[in-house]
């Protein structure tokens, strides 16, 4: 038995520390977890994401109590029971729908912040990789959740996305039927996607969030200039009372205070959308019950998948699938495709700065073209944007290899 204070009152701090090491935990995870001072509001996106995930979890728990994962009951359990009968059911649904959409906006901002400031390099590779794992699991979570209201968009999105697993000319129809448990999306399909949405994927997400936070603890957060900070040295200055000269602040409550400032602005926007503009997250076509014999005139994914959808669309089937697969995995490889020795912001990196903005503009262009019908000029812009996306990523190692060491 280790040392412990026999006189400590039960559940006092001393008593808990002797048994759980709460002081050590608090010190390592909060009070002496150091954050650079040289940051801006973009460094608050992680906290916003954590809170949005919390909103999704809580609203989801309340939806779960009335939702029915059965093709005959699902549509009405959402659109009648939850929306009209359950007290504040409409609110939980709108929070869940709006948060599911907004969470991707913040994820993209979070990702592009990381790309701009080089926060995936020189010891921070695992932060990037675990973050991209979160992107994949969140995408699967969004897709499986989109099935649940069992409207026309649910059904047809399910049809199209599961068909991707036939891998084009390989014609792996057995795999598709296995995933669906049927020849077409049906009851077995809906119930298994319900399981994925409410249990397996959230468990995976929570696990990867823990990994993502853990991957941050040792290399620490990057800063606006990409400066190498000796965290031990700066921490000493801070703890000695020289907080002005130290380049770091504590996570709790110095950094948290900044986080909460940005979070407050975000939540105002979030609840404005929830109460006054929830319709942007509710596709009108999905208010028609699923019908396996009638494809809606326009099928398109939610806005956050449009860019990768547009990479699939303009090519013939097999090349389209290959381009799509490329777009899904290429971001994970970023730390290894960027051959430059510099981990500094893009504006100090010459050609990489141009590459960054071209990629961002290209993905916005893909997003818009993905929403428009594939006709005339839009078809052409879509095709060239898709080609540009691939060219940009293939060019990245060459662009960054010739970068001069700063």
């Amino acid at each position, binding site marked *: 038995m280790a040392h412990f204070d026999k006189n400590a009152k039960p559940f006092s701090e001393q008593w808990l520390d002797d048994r759980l090491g709460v002081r050590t935990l608090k010190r390592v995870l909060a009070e002496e977890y150091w954050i650079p001072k040289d940051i801006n509001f973009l460094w608050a996106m992680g906290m916003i994401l954590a809170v949005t995930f919390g909103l999704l979890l809580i609203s989801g728990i309340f939806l779960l109590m009335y939702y029915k994962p059965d093709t005959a009951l699902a549509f009405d359990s959402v659109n009648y029971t939850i929306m009209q009968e359950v007290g504040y059911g409409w609110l939980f649904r709108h929070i869940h729908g709006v948060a599911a959409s907004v969470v991707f906006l913040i994820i993209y901002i979070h990702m592009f912040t990381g790309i701009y400031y080089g926060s995936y390099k020189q010891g921070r590779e695992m932060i990037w990789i675990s973050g991209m794992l979160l992107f994949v699991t969140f995408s699967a979570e969004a897709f499986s959740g989109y099935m649940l209201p069992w409207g026309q968009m649910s059904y047809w999105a399910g049809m199209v996305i599961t068909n991707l697993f036939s891998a084009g000319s390989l014609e792996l129809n057995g795999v598709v039927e296995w995933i669906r448990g049927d020849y077409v999306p049906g009851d077995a399909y809906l119930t298994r996607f319900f399981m994925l949405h409410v249990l397996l994927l959230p468990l995976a997400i929570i696990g990867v969030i823990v990994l993502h936070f853990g991957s941050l603890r040792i290399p620490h957060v990057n800063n606006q200039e990409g400066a190498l900070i000796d965290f031990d040295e700066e921490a000493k200055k801070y703890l000695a009372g020289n907080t002005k000269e130290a380049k770091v602040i504590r996570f709790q409550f110095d950094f948290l205070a900044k986080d909460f400032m940005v979070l407050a602005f975000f939540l105002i926007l979030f609840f404005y959308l929830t109460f006054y503009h929830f319709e942007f997250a509710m596709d009108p076509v999905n208010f028609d019950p699923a019908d396996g014999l009638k494809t809606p005139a326009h099928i398109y994914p939610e806005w956050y998948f449009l860019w990768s959808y547009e990479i699939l669309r303009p090519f013939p*089937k097999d090349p389209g699938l290959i381009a799509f697969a490329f777009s899904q995995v290429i971001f994970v490889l970023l730390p290894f495709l960027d051959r430059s020795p510099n981990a500094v912001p893009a504006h100090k990196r010459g050609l990489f700065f141009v590459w960054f903005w071209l990629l961002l503009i290209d993905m916005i262009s893909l997003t818009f073209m993905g929403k428009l019908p594939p006709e005339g000029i839009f078809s052409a812009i879509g095709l060239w944007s898709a080609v540009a996306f691939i060219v940009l990523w293939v060019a990245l190692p060459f662009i960054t290899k010739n970068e001069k060491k700063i």
Partner: protein
Amino acid sequence: MSDNMNRRDAMGIAFGACAAVGGVFALAGMKKAWDPLPSVKAAGTTTVDISTAEANVLYTEKWRGKPVFIIKKTPEMVAASSATTKKRDVIIGSDHFVVCIGLCTHLGCIPSYEPKNSATQQAFLCACHGATYDQAGINTKAPAPLPMLIPEFKIADGKLIIGEAGPEYEKMKADGVLGDTPLKA
């Protein structure tokens, strides 16, 4: 000490081997749990009486949850058909029919039919990704890679039975016009 280590290793190897074998069986069981149920697989055949069908009107029948398109061709449509297209016709008496699974061969959406475009290359349009097909269900614009698939069918007493292969189906298969492979020009 080394004795102890060896016994621990043996314990670890024995346990690991049993767990690995058990794990493989468990995975096989989990795979099977996701297979289509027997009741789903047993979805039988669909019989359609198409003797009263009107020409150039799209009829949609449901077979194993999928739509099957049936169109009776007008004499003009038959006359305008190429030799390859004619091989895809289901002929009952003197009537020529287009019969195919009404799912786009790209990613499985249902194309829409425009009777007024029956003579053009865009009789069917898939709204999802912009593919088009002619009136015989043959793909005319990317991203569709193949013609719409002709399901197994049999003709009995002037009725069309979908889900069983008859001699007419076998002939189409021999001609390679079912749509499971690209058509030869």
